[in-house]
């Protein structure tokens, strides 16, 4: 089954694009991993995650490992689908541009 090309402005914002791309490759990702990978502050990452959570794209889980609290995040099914559709939209834009620059397809 192919994904429908839908450009998602929520995902495409630079920091969120990186964040969602990391989450798309994972089942669960720890807050610390995301923060360090994206070189964000705790508050900046929390803000981005909350935005995605409000849109239903991300699920946040809080647990304890021993006595230490551990926060993890993952893409929901809706988030995965939105990401897939966004990828399809980007690929479509690139593919169209590729066709346009082929000399034998330029129309006069």
């Amino acid at each position: 089954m192919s994904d429908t090309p839908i450009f998602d402005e929520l995902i495409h914002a630079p920091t969120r694009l990186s964040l969602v791309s990391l989450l798309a490759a994972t089942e669960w990702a720890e807050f610390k991993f995301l923060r360090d990978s994206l070189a964000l502050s705790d508050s900046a990452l929390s803000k981005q995650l909350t935005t995605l959570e409000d849109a239903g794209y991300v699920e946040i889980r809080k647990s304890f490992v021993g006595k230490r609290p551990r926060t993890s995040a993952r893409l929901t099914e809706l988030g995965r689908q939105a990401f897939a559709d966004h990828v399809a939209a980007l690929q479509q834009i690139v593919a169209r541009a590729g066709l346009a620059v082929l000399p034998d397809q330029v129309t006069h």
Partner: protein
Amino acid sequence: MTIPPIDAELALAEMQARRAQVVDSNLVPSWFWFSIGGLMVLFVAAVESEIGWLVATGSVVYALSLSALILAMVRKAKVQVRPDLLGVRGGLAIAAFTLSLVALGLVLGFLLEELGVPMPGTLACVPVALGLAAGGPLLMTHLRRLMLSRPLAGGSR
């Protein structure tokens, strides 16, 4: 909304780079394979010595060291890669690697025993340990390539 094709291409490259970041953070490091191989040889040598205190000490050291290694790996893992990135081919590669080393160890061990060579189990473990130390990183390289070759939005439906 539409964006310039170059921006779309950059966005796709960013997605791929972030996937590589996740995959790289999950690969089993070379020291792990080397350590497991060394531990295995020491453990089998201790057991095969048939000296009571050596068997007991070797077993305890093996169990504790193995636990420490696994714990170190678990603590290192801050993220869990999506299983469908590994896929059936990845699973088969891991199974083939494991089974071939087990088969090598068993065949060599029984063969050496049949020939009356002393410490056959330990000697058979040496090439298996070398196989782990050399083959583990190769397996990781193969799995990395496999996971990065999957479609960016693969398996979402």
